[in-house]
């Protein structure tokens, strides 16, 4: 274990220092993955730019830092989370607040919603839903070689658990507000598990926020199982400050004829990396993966998407768009992997980016590996400026330049937003994007929940 470079070594030490405390507080089944995961981590380490999928993202500034604390909660911490209130939004959703990745105990650790749906703490669910956890936990990250996923499996100990039983349909979305708050620079990890069984229909919204001005590093893994004919939408809205690094890995396993949409909207954040994996593991499954980011100053946003067509007649569609201002940088890497037997595959990918300055930079890379013959597949990427002709057209109608620029950028972004199915949410996202483009978005204003209206 001594051949790990220093930047990875410190996370191994973190494991050693905390593993006893973590294990004591976690379910045995979750603990059973830790040993192998830390061994894998010691082989891979923290990804560097030599890793193909991290080629355009330099993690050094955030990972070569001495975080004073690795968050394991005290009861009193949750009181703070409960006091968090946003002044914006009236989204009609079931709300859950996570503090630094942990589920607060105040309302009980598991909550039942109509239709026999449960949301709550993963750690708590491991007691009540042992069989479900054993069936799904750790299964969908299996085989992944990202050192950060190993690190999460090795030491993460809580997060959101959602169980949607067969045929259950929840009209209102569930919204998880994920707050990070600390007095000292903090590294935290959480682990979510979402189980959506056959014929169920469920929408999840995750909002990432920073509450204090210290340096944050968050590494989150979400595993999702979507059963036959089930519908699942997952949307992530990120609004963190410039001294925060957010890394998310979302693994979605889809069964036959299931339909899934994932949508990552990054409004703000120092360094953001979202990896989204859709595994189309049954005939007729369909996936949409959308992403939008708006970056300025020194921000860096990297979206990695991996769509695996393992069965015939599945469809996938990727649409990612970015607007980069100042010295901001971005990356998109979209991989489509079509297995030999996955005949009748339809797979589309598109990535469009706008650079507002000469210093902004975007790297975009499609990666198509197709081993079947009967495949319809397309990909396209653009990196460019706003259309001068369109700008002049608008000015020639009396719209001033600043307003015209805003309308053009908003129109560009709206192509992603319009795919959000919940209408109220679509409207809210439009408003947030407009505020962000105008430079009016403050940290709390980005919150979509009226927390005081949570049910």
């Amino acid at each position, binding site marked *: 274990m001594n051949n790990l470079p220093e930047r990875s070594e410190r996370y191994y030490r973190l494991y050693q220092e905390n593993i006893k405390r973590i294990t004591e507080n976690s379910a045995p089944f979750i603990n059973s993955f830790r040993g192998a995961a830390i061994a894998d981590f010691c082989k891979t380490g923290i990804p560097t730019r030599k890793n193909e999928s991290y080629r355009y993202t330099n993690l050094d500034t955030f990972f070569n830092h001495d975080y004073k604390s690795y968050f394991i909660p005290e009861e009193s911490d949750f009181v703070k989370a409960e006091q968090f209130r946003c002044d914006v939004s009236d989204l009609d959703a079931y709300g859950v607040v996570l503090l630094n990745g942990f589920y607060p105990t105040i309302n009980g650790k598991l909550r039942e919603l109509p239709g026999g749906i449960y949301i709550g703490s993963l750690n708590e669910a491991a007691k009540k839903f042992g069989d479900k956890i054993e069936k799904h936990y750790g299964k969908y990250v299996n085989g992944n070689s990202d050192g950060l996923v190993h690190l999460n499996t090795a030491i993460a100990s809580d997060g959101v658990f959602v169980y949607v039983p067969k045929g259950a349909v929840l009209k209102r979305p569930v919204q998880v507000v994920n707050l990070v708050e600390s007095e000292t620079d903090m590294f935290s990890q959480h682990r979510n598990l979402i189980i959506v069984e056959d014929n169920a229909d469920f929408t999840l919204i995750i909002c990432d926020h920073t509450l204090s001005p210290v340096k944050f590093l968050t590494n989150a893994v979400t595993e999702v199982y979507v059963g036959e004919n089930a519908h699942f939408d997952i949307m992530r809205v990120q609004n963190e400050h410039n001294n925060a690094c957010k890394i998310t890995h979302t693994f979605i396993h889809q069964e036959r004829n299931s339909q899934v949409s994932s949508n990552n909207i990054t409004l703000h954040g120092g360094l953001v990396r979202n990896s989204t994996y859709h595994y189309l593991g049954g005939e007729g499954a369909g996936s949409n993966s959308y992403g939008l980011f708006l970056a300025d100053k020194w921000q860096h946003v990297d979206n990695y998407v991996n769509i695996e067509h393992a069965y015939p007649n599945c469809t996938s569609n990727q649409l990612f768009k970015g607007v980069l201002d100042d010295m901001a940088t971005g990356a998109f890497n979209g991989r489509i992997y079509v297995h030999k037997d996955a005949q009748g595959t339809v797979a589309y990918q598109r990535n469009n980016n706008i650079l507002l300055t000469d210093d902004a930079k975007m790297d975009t890379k499609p990666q198509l590996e197709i081993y079947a013959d009967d495949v319809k597949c397309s990909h396209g990427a653009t990196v460019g400026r706003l*259309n001068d*002709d*369109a700008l*002049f*057209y*608008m*000015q*020639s*109608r*009396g*719209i*001033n*330049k600043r*307003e*015209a620029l805003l*309308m*053009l950028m*908003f*129109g*560009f*972004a*709206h*192509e992603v937003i319009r795919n959000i199915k919940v209408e109220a949410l679509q409207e809210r996202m439009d408003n947030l994007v407009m505020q962000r483009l105008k430079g009016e978005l403050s940290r709390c204003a980005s919150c979509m929940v009226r927390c005081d209206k949570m049910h």
Partner: protein
Amino acid sequence: MLIIKNLKAAINGKQILKGISLEVKAGEIHAIMGPNGSGKSTLAAVLAGREFAEVTEGTVTYMGRNLFEMAAEDRSKEGIFLGFQYPIEIPGVSMVNFMKTAVNEHRKHKGLEPLSASDFLKLMREKKEFVEIDSKLTNRSVNEGFSGGEKKKNEIFQMAMLEPKLAILDETDSGLDIDALRIVANGVNRLKRPDNAAIVITHYQRLLDYIVPDVVHVLYDGRIVKTAGKELALELEEKGYEWIKEHVEEK
């Protein structure tokens, strides 16, 4: 209303307009005709404030003001409207939002309150009938997926919404079938008032069967080589642009 004196303009160092003088008075319709490459569209672009053409000499006075001191959006708010030869598609910007912003910018400029949503929709409905434009089109993004004819009708629709003092229509007739041509021309005729004016730029005489100009200018190689009444258009149609070329070379 508009006085152009010895206007010269270049694109990428190449002289396109070589000294144009022209005066348009309120209540008049001027037609500018000429072969391809004579500088018709450059003239329209310079008047509307498009920055790709560099004005090297001359003056343009609009309503007593130096036009070149006004930004494109201010020219619009002061009543200049350019009907584009190739209207631009703007994905993601809805026609309604686009027009509402434009109309309210114009109103603000005049010191008026913005229109309420219902008044605005009423105005839209009224003007849509006027140019016989399909309602579905105005629910889409600006010009996105419109046919050539629909795009041109949309230009006239926007003109009707903004009620300009000086409309400059750049080859609005190109690519139109006869029905669309009639609708476009009708729009122009019905918007005509004693206190406004229009410059109709066209390659063909055809449009002038429907819009009767007071003055016809022939633009050739960056200069106005002939100016006369509406009969000039017919003569041009009959004799073709070769006649103009010979006419110029004789001089």
